[in-house]
């Protein structure tokens, strides 16, 4: 058997006892500090939640127009760029609207998603975002892990998206044309209040 070469150690180190007592002192110091101060770095998770940073990539949501319809025009850019191939879009046509296409169904398989954020970057219409700050993405069945259009549209009902507070705090960082009230970027040629 090839044993590792023993390091040169002093006599005190070789009888272990002194070194063990030193180690015990360190651990006891930590234990006593935590016993009396109780200032842990950890969060009491379900009761106390961590403030996520503004640019944290959480669960996806579909942004909406002021009239409530999704902004998505079913251009398939996100589905195309997705490295995990987890986005499924079924496109449909609108007759009475300048927008030609809209997604009849928009599904993301969260079990396959790798949270790379490429879909958000690829989207030409700012229709999909990951600014929800939701990190508890879980379900009891595989089927429930597929987020659909309705779910992703309602996801932020009554909640503030992370980016909104970010843009409020740093208005100069907001993209050109970003409207705080409507929480979206207004295109130059698009009339307001569509």
């Amino acid at each position, binding site marked *: 058997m090839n*044993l590792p070469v023993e390091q040169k150690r002093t006599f005190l180190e070789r009888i272990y006892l002194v070194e063990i007592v030193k180690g015990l002192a360190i651990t006891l110091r930590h234990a006593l500090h*935590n016993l009396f101060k109780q200032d*842990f770095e950890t969060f009491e998770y379900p009761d106390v939640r961590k403030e996520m940073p503004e640019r944290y990539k959480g669960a996806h949501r579909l942004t909406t127009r002021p009239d409530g319809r999704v902004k998505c025009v079913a251009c398939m850019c996100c589905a195309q760029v997705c490295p995990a191939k987890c986005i499924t879009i079924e496109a449909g046509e609108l007759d009475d609207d300048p927008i030609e296409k809209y997604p009849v169904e928009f599904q993301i398989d969260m079990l396959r998603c790798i949270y790379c954020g490429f879909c958000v970057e690829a989207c030409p219409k700012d229709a999909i975002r990951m600014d929800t700050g939701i990190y508890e993405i879980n379900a009891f069945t595989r089927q429930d892990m597929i987020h659909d259009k309705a779910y992703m549209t309602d996801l932020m009902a009554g909640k503030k998206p992370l980016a909104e507070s970010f843009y409020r705090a740093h208005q100069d960082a907001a993209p050109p044309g970003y409207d705080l009230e409507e929480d979206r970027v207004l295109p130059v040629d698009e009339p307001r209040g569509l």
Partner: protein
Amino acid sequence: MESHWTEVIVALIKCVFSLAFVMQIVPVLIWAERKFSAYIQDRPGPNRAHIMGIRAGGLVHTLVDVVKLVVKEDIIPDHVEKKFWFAAPVIAMSCALTTFTVVPWGDRFVVPASITAWWGGEGPLTVPLQVATINSGMLFILAIGSLSVYGVMLAGWSSNNKFSLLGGLRASAQMVSYELAMGLSVATMFMLYGTTELDKVAAQQAGPIWNWGLFGVLDADGFDPLLFVGWIVGGLAFIMFWTSVFAETNRMPFDLPEGEAELVAGYHVEYSSLRFALFFMAEYAHMIVGSAVTATLFFGGYNIPFLPGDSIRAHADTIVTVLGFGAVPVFIAFAVIAWNRRKRPFYQALAPDDIRHREPRFFAAFWSVLAIAHLGLGVAGLTGAVGSTALGPELLAFILQTSSLVIKVLIGTFFMIWVRWTIPRFRYDQLMNLGWRAMLPLALGNVFLAGIWVIFREAVQA
């Protein structure tokens, strides 16, 4: 009608007590292991499970753990050697529990004649507080302790799994190696005590603190400079015995049998549900028994320093008064601390209707009730209600001496837990080097030293 039935019933009660003694400490240890390790690693540890909103610092987790282990599916793999596989956890657990039978937890309990008259006994009945008063005492512990390796070995072999087999092999090699040092350090102590009976060993350590085995058993009436020579023999024996206890219990620096990095879980990898729980509890029972034996051999056993059993009985009222009134401010302080805990950020962050807001109130009430109870105890001591009865002083001596042993056991096991979360595991060759090339010669030398010391001590005392 003093019959053997009395003895049988007394023996049964003692059996149940000694079983309960060990089994009651186990959950506390599991809790201590979790909480203390968490504090060492700068995290809060178990704090979720609660009963009616009372979390008790994570103690409830241990209860939940028991429920989990009981209701879990008991998987019996097809490839195991059934007979031995079933027997192994039973052997491990029963060996751990059996060893406790010879450890005394008090000097004696005299049942007064007024009570023995209930079943027609004649006169007071003196009960030795030890399940088995056998003259081999410590040898019995060594013998049964060695048997416990069969539990580990059989589990490892009968699982028909290479990881368990390696774990079992390591366990047996390790136990055999360290049993030598353990036996020799025990032999040293018996040369000092002149007996192997643990009740006599404990009785010899009554009185001042320098009568403890750790100091070489001087039997001196007062402080003597010679004590420092006894330190060497007693201290060396203690260090070696204590190290061997670690090895025998398969605790941290010596837990190669279950080295999870390379052996998954070692010898109990195929066990689940209550069978695993038996191994788990056996480890803790071993810790308790190891600490109890160490306390008995080196730290005065059930004796309270400077307060032998007879003085407890003689001054029962004074002791009750001092303890009763002395405990009151302590418990009041605890109550105040518990009540002030409601201001902690954690409780502030909780929803107002959260059930856990009861916690500070509950513990404030709990400690207050204890304070009032001890106030009553102090008053009872003042009025002389304890010493005047026949049973009072006996009960007091029993409670105090048993608590003394419990405290010593808890300190010992706490130290084991502390060591576990401090130092890393030995490599196998380091383990064998330490056992055979360091501990064995040292232990042999210590036996020689002890011989000189015993002769010297007799010459001085004569």
